[in-house]
Structures are given as C-alpha cells and as structure tokens.
C-alpha cells in the first residue's frame, strides 16, 4: 500500500490510499481519560487497515456519550435517537449492501431504552459491527443508574446504592435466537481491543462486541481496581478466537481455552463475570441466517420489469 521512493528517501502515499487523518473529523469532546477515546482510535485504525472508503462507511449511533461518536469520524454518520441505532442501521443496510455499517450504542441505549431493538437486531443478523460502549452509568445525563451498573452502585437516582442486579449483556445476547458473534473486550487493552474489532469486522453477520469502558468521572472507583489488578481479567483463547501475539498474551495472568463454536460453554464462561472479567470471543457462527441477504435479494430489477409486475397485479382488480 505505502511505497517508499528510494531516490527521494521519503514516503509516497499514492492517491486513493486512506490515512488515519482521512477518517478524522472534529476533535473528540469526551472527558479526558474516557474509554471512548481509545475505541475511536481503534476504529479509525480498523478503517485504515481495511482501507474502507469513507463515503462507503456509515456510523449509526443513539444518544448518550457514545452517541457523539459519528461526529468524530470523517465518514457518513447518523446520530439519531436514544435507543434506536439498531433499527436505523438496519434500514441503512437493507438495500445498501455496498455500505459498511457500524452501530455505536451505549449501555442505556442498548440495554434499556432500546432493549427491544437489541433483541431483534441480533435475530436479524445483518452484516454490521455493533459496538456496545458499556461504562455502566448514564454519563451525559450525569450519573444515573444504568441497567449494567453493579448492584449497590451509588448514583443520583439511587444515592444509597442501586437495588437490582445488573444485566449481563453477553449472557443476554448469547440467549437470543440466531445470534452469530459475541465478543467482549476492554478499552484499556489496546491490542485486544484492536484484534476484537478486527475480528468483528470480518464476521459475516451481526458482530456484537461489548466494550467495557472506563468512565473516570462517574465510575472511577468501579473500574480502577479492574484496570490495575492483573487478576481481574481472564482471556478466552482459541485458534478460532481473538488473535493476540504471544507477547500480548503473556501480559495476561489468566488465560483459558474456549472454543467459540460451543454456545453452551460460552454461556457458562459468560457467568465468570462474577469472579473475573472474561474477554475474548464467546461465540461465532458464520452460517446463521442473514436478513440483509433477504433484504438485498431482489435488487436491480429494471423499471420496465417492475412496471410489468405492478400491471399484472392491477389485472387482478380489472373488471
């Protein structure tokens, strides 16, 4: 892709090659230390690595801190309504198989107000990457309990601690019909994050990735121990899973073998979260039914043929 001109001793970037800057829009306005920054970098890197034409790439988001994501990409973007990123993204993809569609959603967005769409988006299994930015808190509205807040989290709506156990988005997704790709990663392990997003992009269907994300402003105490404690994370390793270099893998103290073809085992592993945070590929099925294939199956019929079909139906009403 990038050629070196030995005479001039300088890098020549031919036209048509996209650089990181080509995906960069305005400066991200998230708080300093927010995990979203590293996800943004990882996504840009993926775009560059895959050389996704910015005009063929669409980021669809909901509302919340994560919802601002498309504004910081120099691609097409759709910053829509709270909880509704999935239906919009599905509509974008339905008759536009040529577009690379990414869904950017948060824990409130996906697991609360838009939970119904989450269930059905998994079932539709349209080829898209869905990134769940899960910081376990409502940030933009200033610290309310989220459906993924650990029980006892002290928030502005539950000052004495939240009273219900949280939703486990991985476990919930693994319970849905036609699920085809479920992975988990964390914003502070860039190599794992990158490899996970890469794997998700390559998946032929809906790749659901939960990214456990730090919120230094409202959830400092919740994440700091996990970030610092080398025992807090367990890596799911497998030749069909998320690929990490030996060197990267060595950085983790807990590594278990998990075959992503095994959904029963995947559900068991998803329960590990009570003791340690499992990251990696839980489940993948490349053969699941894809609604986007149904959506695009009859594209390109000529207008005369379409007119003929309508006329034929009109015959039925003729007297």
């Amino acid at each position, binding site marked *: 892709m990038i050629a070196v001109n030995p005479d001039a001793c300088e890098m020549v970037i031919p036209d048509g090659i996209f650089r990181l800057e080509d995906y960069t*829009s*305005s400066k991200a306005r998230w708080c300093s230390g927010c995990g979203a920054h590293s996800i943004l970098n990882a996504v840009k890197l993926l775009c560059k690595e895959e050389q996704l*034409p*910015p*005009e*063929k790439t*669409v*980021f*669809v988001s909901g509302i919340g801190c994560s919802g601002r994501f*498309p*504004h910081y*990409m*120099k*691609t*097409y*973007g*759709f*910053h*829509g*309504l709270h909880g*509704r990123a*999935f*239906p*919009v*993204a*599905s*509509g*974008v*993809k*339905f*008759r*536009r198989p*040529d*577009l690379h569609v990414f869904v950017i959603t948060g824990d409130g967005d996906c697991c609360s107000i838009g939970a*119904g*769409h989450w*269930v*059905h988006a998994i079932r539709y299994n349209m080829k898209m990457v869905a990134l769940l930015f899960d910081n376990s808190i409502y940030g933009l509205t200033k610290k309310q309990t989220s459906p993924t807040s650990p029980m006892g989290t002290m928030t502005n709506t539950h000052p004495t601690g939240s009273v219900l156990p949280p939703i486990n988005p991985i476990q919930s997704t693994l319970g849905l019909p036609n699920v085809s790709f479920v992975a988990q990663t964390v914003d502070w392990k860039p190599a794992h994050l990158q490899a996970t997003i890469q794997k998700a992009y390559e998946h032929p269907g809906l790749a659901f990735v939960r990214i456990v994300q730090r919120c230094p402003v409202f959830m400092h105490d919740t994440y700091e121990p996990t970030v610092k404690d080398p025992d807090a994370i367990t890596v799911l390793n497998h030749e069909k899973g998320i690929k990490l270099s030996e060197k990267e893998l060595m950085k983790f103290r807990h590594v278990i073998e998990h075959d992503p073809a095994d959904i029963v085992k995947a559900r068991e592993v998803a329960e590990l979260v009570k003791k340690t945070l499992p990251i990696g590929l839980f489940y993948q099925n490349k053969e699941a039914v894809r609604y986007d294939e*149904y*959506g695009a199956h*009859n*594209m390109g*019929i000529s*207008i*005369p*043929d*379409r*007119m003929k*079909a*309508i*006329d*034929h*139906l*009109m015959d039925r*009403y*003729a*007297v």
Partner: protein
Amino acid sequence: MSDTTQTLAKPTSSTTGVKEAIVEIVSDSGEGAQKCGQSLGKISARMGNGVWTVEIIPAEIQPPARSREGASGIRVRIGQEEITNMGDQAHLVVALNEQVLFGRIEQNAYKAGTYLLIDNKWAEHTSPDIRRGYLDAILRFKKLGYIIHEIPIEKECLKLVSDARRGKNMWVLGLLCYIYDRDMDLATEQVKSIFQKKTDEVIRKNLDLLNAGYQWAEQNLELHFPIPARQIDEEIVVMNGNEAISLGVMAAGMEVCSMYPITPATSATHGMAETIQSAGGIIHQAEDEIAAIGFAIGASYAGKTAVTITSGPGIALKTEFIGLASMAEIPLVIIDVQRGGPSTGLPTKVEQGDLLAVLYGTPGDAPKFILAPSTIEECFHYVILARKLAEAFRIPVFVLSDANLATGVQPFKRPKIKEEWFASELDQHPWDTDIRPYEWDEDTGISKRPIPGQKGGVYTLTGLAHDEGSRVAYDSSINQRAMEARSRKLATLKDTLKPPKIHGDPSGDLLLVGWGSTRGAIEEAVSRAREKGASVSCVQLHFLNPLEPGLKEIFQRFKQVMTVEINYSDTLGHPHITEENRRYAQLAWYLRAQTLVDIDCFSHVFGQPMSPFRILKMLEEKLDKKLID
C-alpha cells in the same frame, strides 16, 4: 312459519329501472357474504354502473354465531351514475340469520320500507329457543315497517350441495342478479374467476348455485328493480383504498415498506405482499412501530425513500422519529389509515381524529407535509405524489387515509403506470464539496442532500440543532435560521398550489368544508340540498399542511362556513358548553386559527362513515329548510 308471499312490494317496471339501490348481505362470520357483495359490485362495475361497497366487520375473528354484535357482511351501493359513498339506509337486505339484523338496525342502517330477505331455516330449527327468537324477530321487524320476505335459502342450496354454509353466498348472488337485473354472462365470468384456482367440479357447483338463485327469484319473487347498464369505453379497476395505497407504493418505485401490524392499516401491506418483490421492493415487518419508522428512516437516509404505514396508536409511538425526520430533513412517506381514538379506541371504525396529532404532535416545531386523499383513486395517486414531494423538499410527508377509504371499494379508471413515477436511480456521483449538507436556499428553504456512497459528501446527520454543515450547534443562535429554513418549505409548496374547487355556487348562505374520505357524502348532500333550493356549497381540502391558498377569500363569500368531520367536537347546548369553551372539530379548530373566520363544525364519532342523510338533517336545522322527502 310465516307466509312468504304476504308482503310484496310493487316492483318497478323493468323498462324504466331504478336510479340506484343500496343492498346489504349480512350473516355470521365466515358465510361468504363479503365475497357475494364484492362480486355483485364487480359485475355492476363491469356493467358501467357506479359502485361503492363497504364491508361490515365484527370486532372478533369468530364472534358467537347468531349474535347481534356478530354481524358480518357487506353493503353495496349501485347506481346509474358515479357513486362516491356508502349512502343512507338500505333498499334491500339479504340476511342469513335474523339476529345479525338487530345490530344493523341499531346503527340506523334500514328504514321503513327496506326489504329484508331472511333465510327461513330458523323457523324450523330443532331448538325451541331459536325458533322463538326467529319468530319474535320477524314480528319486531314488521312493526318497524320493514318489508319481510322469508325465503328458503338453505333449503334450496341443499338441493345442490351437501354443506349449504359453503354455497349460500353464490345462490344469494344469483338472487340479487335477478332482482337488480345483472348481466348473467358477466356474473358467470365473475364466479369462474373467483374459483379459478379450484377444480372444474367446484366451479360447476358454484355456477349451479348462481343460476338456481336467479331462477328461484324469477319464479318466486316479485321484486325486480333493474339498474340500467351504462356504456363504458375505458378500462376500469375496482379496489379499496388500502389496495390502492399498496399499488401506489409500488408505482412510486419505493423499495422499502416498513410496518408493524395495526388495524385498519395492515391490509395495505397484504395487498402488495405477493407482488412487491417482483416490483423491486420489500416489506419489512419490524419489531415495533418505533423500529418500523426508524428502519424506514435509515433506508431513506441511505437514498431509498421509504414508506411506513400505520394508524393512530402507531403515529403516537413514531412521534419522536417523525421529529427527527423533520429536523434532519429526511424524505419519508408516512401513511396513517386513521381509526377511532384515543388509545385503542375503535380499531375497525372510521375517524378523522389524527389531523392535529400529525400536524402538531411533535415537540418543538417540526414542519411536515400532510395530504388527504378523498377517493380510492386518490389513495393511489397521492402516495406517488407524496414520495416526490418528500424527495424534492427533503421532508416527511403524511398521507391521511381512514378506515372508510381503507375498506370502501369503488371502480375507477385504470391507472397507466408511468416510468416517471418511479424513484430515480441512486445518485452516486461525487459530491461537490463546496455544497454543505444543509445549505438552505434563502428563498425556498430547500437544501441538497448527499447520499452515503457519494464521495466528498460525508456528513453526520444529527437530531441535535445543527448548522448548514450539519455541525452540532454549540452556538444555539443558528437554531433560529435553521427553523426558518425548514418552515419556509411549507410556504414554498403553498405558493405552487391552486385554491380548491368549489362544488356548487362560488358564494351563498353556507359553505361546508371537508377533508379526506367525507367528500362523497358531503358533495351528495350538497347536491341534494341544492335541488331543494338551498344555497349551500362545499369544498374538500386535499392539502392540510400547507393548506391550499385562497381559503379566507373563499370563506368570506359565504354567510356561514362549517366543517363536516368524523371526529369529536362539543355540541352547543350541552351542559356547560358555551361559545367560549366549546371544543371544535379538528379542521375547524385549525381553519379558525389560520383564517380568523368564525367557522362552525358538524362532527360525530359514532364510528360510522359520514352519510348524506346525516348531513342533510343537519342542514335542515342549520338552514331551517325542509330538505329530506
């Protein structure tokens, strides 16, 4: 058993014929009454007659047999001239049991002198309760002045088929073909076409039933009311408003129809379900109403202007997305087949109760266009128009139909599908990077939008207040200019419209103003009142946002102006209701605000379409003049 021949009307001489007739066929659910009436309507349309048919639908799929609420059937109004509405009380009714008639009587569907032709099998039923119920009912009906004919429908059918339940409707069709002098060659063709996918044996049996019904009537009934045929020299189609909408969606070249099941809108998607795939489109049945519009918006944003079809409760759920489509200027067609509200309301019945909700239902100012077809034919053409307007103005466009149009069946000139109705090819040319995604034209408010895939056009659409570049308005002063631009599109469209046509004189004592499906009933009532010398005219509005121009000037030419609508308004004279606190019908409310003319209203929510009779009665009081014979 009562005497079949005791009450006989004087039949009209077959040489002169009658101008029109309203016929009902009522039965329990599943006895084929609707098929019978639809066939009668089609045969009549082919004879060049005007026709309007409307189904009589009970609330449940299988209501209890022989129940008053379980009336299922159809009304067919046939005339020498064009028929535009379901009319007033029926001329003749065929009932497969007597109990279902009570429900219709409560709805004022019949009058003294209406012929009731009732299957007399119940008179000899094994159950004494049923026998008594039957005899009591016959006595009641006679007291009410109906002209009763007890006829052996089941008995006659059993001579030809073993299960009369599955054949009575064709026998009754034959009977009606005799009474109204229908062309039996056309009737034979119609029966063959109904059963075209069945065996020859089935077709033969049904033709036997048709002919037997005809012959029985000829030999036993002295009821003969020929409606003269009329020469037709153009191709005709017969369909209901929902079927017209589904053809319109496809003829508009829309590739995505995104919906969630809701009565009475859903049948619009049934109509196209088989064909749309070969017509280059797909129906997406979403997980809920919100997702249905979100999906449509996604497709529209990606360059494939989509349609979502729903009814009132669906509109309520879609409201936030409608605001987004307006704010972010996403072309979109929203079809609202209105039903009785609020809440679950009257799901199968007509109401025009959503006007103000679609006009103002969105928080903040969210301009959108609103069109209201007034005939079945317009249901077809308005969908095509809606897509074109949506794309040209980059705005959501509503088409307000209702349960009356949805189920009313009318013949009209067969549309010749035109290539220019179709959405143009997806524009994927590189975008001129000098043009910003919301570069609002100062004069029209219109801006050009880049479509994903267009190089150089990348932008992030947002529901946040934004500037011409679609950048979030951290400085909120841009909001004023953006709102002005979005609003200006309404005034721009209005400047291209013509004032509405007036039915009747251009000035006079009273002007009735209607919108949507009430047109036929209002115009008929006005014509009949004018024949009696009343100085009344009417006008039907087809554009509700923006309104057609010149309304104030038209209104000022009349001493009084009054809307006629199927929605709720307070009635003066009711407890506490005064001129000051009276709540007006929706169009009246809106027109009063827009024109500052003191507009009165006549509206009701009985769940019934507006009938000419009801309007005439109102006119008699309002004008203090006898108008009904």
